């Protein structure tokens, strides 16, 4: 019998089954009716040439190694022989029956065994790859499904909806009868979502509490004798097998996801892995809901605080406005009586009495200024300051302001000069408020300048075609008035502070003032649609710039 063709066919086979059939066909071509069986490791027939049963006289699998001696088959009256060729520990053995004398070529049969062993090993490797491919495909399908669940869950902020989705998806993905989601709330456990429960309404689940406390997966198995699990909640549900996994996120445990089977079921590592992933979804939903709840509560608190603050601010404004009005009346009265006394209406005053009275008069005027400033400030902040917008000649207002400040400047021997003025357009603004700002700036400049001068100048910025004696509709651009002094200057770090209410920089208090003049002036400038800024350097004086739009918008009021 020439085995070379048979060996070639075996090598070309895709697995042991086809190899057995190929061997049978190859041997048949040589004559006779040979049969072959491939016995698996456990001795069962994995493949055969024609489905014929294995002759009963074939002994159990031989030890690994080459083919043993051919055996006479009593079933065939000794006319046929059988050869058992062990294929190795994992692949069982090959059994071939053929007419007596067919197995003379022992080397050839050893080669047949080697070819079979090679095919079996190749097939085993192929099956392993197939198995791994199936596992990977299954994992990929699971990942896709979990991704889909995530997409659906992300569509809502309602934790009940998300937890219900998770519970229902978990039930089918793990082939369970019921699923519960329980959360820990101030130490006690509460079922917040469930699917497939027989009991109506949520109930406490001590097993879920135990899982949450353990912070690891726990299982339940029905007792063989009673058929029930040792947890009343789940025994009542008919659980035979259960799995609980903690709901945890960022190191915090929120509760547990419990999966119940009412039939015998063997939990696999896959079940625990999937349950943990699904519990992660539930934990995110609970965490989001809690964060959302906390955020809503905080927002409510802030809104309430804001409302209180608004009320308080309004009350303060009302108080300041009312108080200022109430104070001005008696102050004016005091000033009036002082004037009468100083004019000698009731008789000549002693020099010392006059001096005291003049001091009282100055203090009263200061107090009146303060009260007026506070009143202005409260009106501005309450949005109740009324502007009277009308065309205004800048030069006229500047002259009025200089005239007002001249007595103070003369007393301090400070010259107040007006620089060369360019042609200025009319400005559409509130002249009284501009005058108020300029007087404040000039007053400060004179007070803070010990020697030298105060200079006023003006310029037009980005005015386009607006340099006309009358203000055209749609005119744009700015007029700037600069008040420069030769005083001590302001340090850079204080140049914003001086515009804050009641803030006076070191040394300023000695020169008088309420600390409200500049803040009010800036607020007024902004109300008019302009700005008040300062440029200064210590030891080199200061320049305050009032910038006004050619046309103030009504909405600034």
């Amino acid at each position, binding site marked *: 019998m020439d085995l070379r063709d048979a060996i070639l066919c075996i090598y070309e086979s895709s697995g042991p089954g086809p190899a057995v059939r190929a061997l049978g066909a190859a041997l048949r071509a040589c004559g006779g009716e040979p049969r072959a069986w491939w016995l698996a490791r456990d001795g069962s027939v994995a493949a055969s040439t024609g489905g014929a049963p294995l002759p009963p006289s074939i002994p159990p699998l031989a030890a690994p190694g080459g083919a043993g001696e051919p055996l006479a088959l009593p079933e065939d009256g000794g006319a046929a022989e059988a050869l058992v060729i062990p294929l190795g520990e994992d692949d069982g053995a090959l059994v071939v029956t053929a007419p007596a004398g067919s197995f003379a070529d022992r080397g050839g049969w050893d080669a047949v065994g080697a070819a079979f062993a090679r095919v079996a090993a190749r097939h085993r490797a192929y099956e392993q790859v197939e198995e791994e491919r199936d596992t990977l495909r*299954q994992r990929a*399908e699971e990942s896709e*499904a979990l991704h*889909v669940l995530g*997409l659906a869950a992300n569509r809502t902020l309602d934790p009940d909806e998300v937890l*219900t989705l998770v519970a229902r998806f978990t*039930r*089918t*993905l793990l082939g369970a*009868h019921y699923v519960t989601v329980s959360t820990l709330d101030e130490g006690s456990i509460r079922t917040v979502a469930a699917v497939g429960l027989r009991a109506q309404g949520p109930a406490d689940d001590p097993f879920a509490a135990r899982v949450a406390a353990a912070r690891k997966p726990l299982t339940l198995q029905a007792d063989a004798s009673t058929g029930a699990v040792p947890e009343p909640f789940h025994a009542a549900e008919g659980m035979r097998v259960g799995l609980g996994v903690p709901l945890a996120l960022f190191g915090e445990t929120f509760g547990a996801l419990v999966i119940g089977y009412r039939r015998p079921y063997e939990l696999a590592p896959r079940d625990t892995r999937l349950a943990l992933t699904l519990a992660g979804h539930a934990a995110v939903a609970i965490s989001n809901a809690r964060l959302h709840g906390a955020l809503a509560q905080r927002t409510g608190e802030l809104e309430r605080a804001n409302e209180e603050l608004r009320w308080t601010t309004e009350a303060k404004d009302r108080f300041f406005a009312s108080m200022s009005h109430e104070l001005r009346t008696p102050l004016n009265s005091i000033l009036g009586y002082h004037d009468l006394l100083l004019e000698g209406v009731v008789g000549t005053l002693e020099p010392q009495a006059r001096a005291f009275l003049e001091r009282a008069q100055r203090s009263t005027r200061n107090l009146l200024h303060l009260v007026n400033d506070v009143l202005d400030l409260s009106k501005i902040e309450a949005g109740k300051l009324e502007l009277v917008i009308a065309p205004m000649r800048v030069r006229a207002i500047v002259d009025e302001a200089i005239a007002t400040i001249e007595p103070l400047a003369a007393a301090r021997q400070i010259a107040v000069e007006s620089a060369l003025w360019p042609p200025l357009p009319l400005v559409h603004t509130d002249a009284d408020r501009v005058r108020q700002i300029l007087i404040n700036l000039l007053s400060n400049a004179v007070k803070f300048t010990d020697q030298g001068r105060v200079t006023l100048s003006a310029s037009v910025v980005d005015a386009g075609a607006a340099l006309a004696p009358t203000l055209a509709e749609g005119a744009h651009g700015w007029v700037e008035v600069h008040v420069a002094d030769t005083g001590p200057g302001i340090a850079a770090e204080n140049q914003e502070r001086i515009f804050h209410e009641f803030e006076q920089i070191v040394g300023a208090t000695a020169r008088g003032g309420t600390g409200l003049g500049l803040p009010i002036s800036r607020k007024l400038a902004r109300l008019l649609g302009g700005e008040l800024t300062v440029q200064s350097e210590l030891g080199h004086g200061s320049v305050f710039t009032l910038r006004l739009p050619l046309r103030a918008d009504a909405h600034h009021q």
Partner: protein
Amino acid sequence: MPIINEPRVRATDTLEPSADAASRATAAERAGDWNEAAGLYAVTFRTALGQGEFERAADALRGQARMRLQQGRYEEAEELLELSLEIARQHGLAAAEARGCNVLGIIRYSQRDWAGAQPLYEQALEMALDGGDDELTGLACLNLGVLANLRGDYHEARRRYLEGIGSFVRSGSTANAMLAYNNLGIASADLQEWMEAEVYFSRGIEIAERLRHAPPAGMLYSNLAKPLIQVGELDRARASLDLAEEAARRVGDTSTLTDVERFRAMAARADGDLDAAERHLSAALARVGGNEDMEQERAEVYREWAELARAQGKPEVAVERLREAALAFTRMGMVADAEAVRRRVAEISAEIPA
């Protein structure tokens, strides 16, 4: 419309005569040869009964019923199913009984008796869970989702389809998972969640391409066009419709070909080419013809035509078309769609000058 499904009899690897007939019946069913399959299921039933294989006999009767259902012979299908269920109950065959309940539900659904279908699907689901039949669990969930979809409860439909996907992943029923993704896409589109709808249809397409299943691939490519049109991806939508048309033509799927024309019209309208839109809708309506089985396709064509008429500045025509659509939806018992169309009638009517 979402797909409703029932698995074929599973082929076995043993070679008893009844199993052999069952295998051939399954093959004929897959090939869409309903008469041949019904005959082979009948042979399987008789052989199995003679050999005392009651589960196989019950399965064969169910297969035969399925074939009659495909042929629209509902009464016959129901009688066969009742007998299958009786055999299953008599012999304590819980799995066969559960599957029988599901198919009976499908028969009720096909007769538009949705209220009658619901408890049968629910019973099938409970029994499938008890028996650990993951594939049937998924199918029952899918079918319950379809009913929720028809009621207009799209959120519940989505939950059911997700449950179905869970079961199909567990059972390895990839083909059924593909149909669940399709239905999930439809529910998401109904909820106007276009991005999600695109993801789900694309996932279904991946599976269909891998399994080389042309009919569902055509339907999925067609369905994918809708969310793409809605988000302004008109080129991608048209490319998807080309693939849908190719696949649908290969298997003669008139329903999908009608949808393709309708979505082409929608894309043309979105592009401002109203003449082209009208041509596509005319083609869609011609495909539907007088086919009573395509009532839903016809209603959807009317619905789109109403939007086209409105875009053409013909609100009266739009209202007329919508009324025809509402009538068709009502005839089919699709209450939620009929109601949505009536709301649209009210909106467009308000635009008509008095």
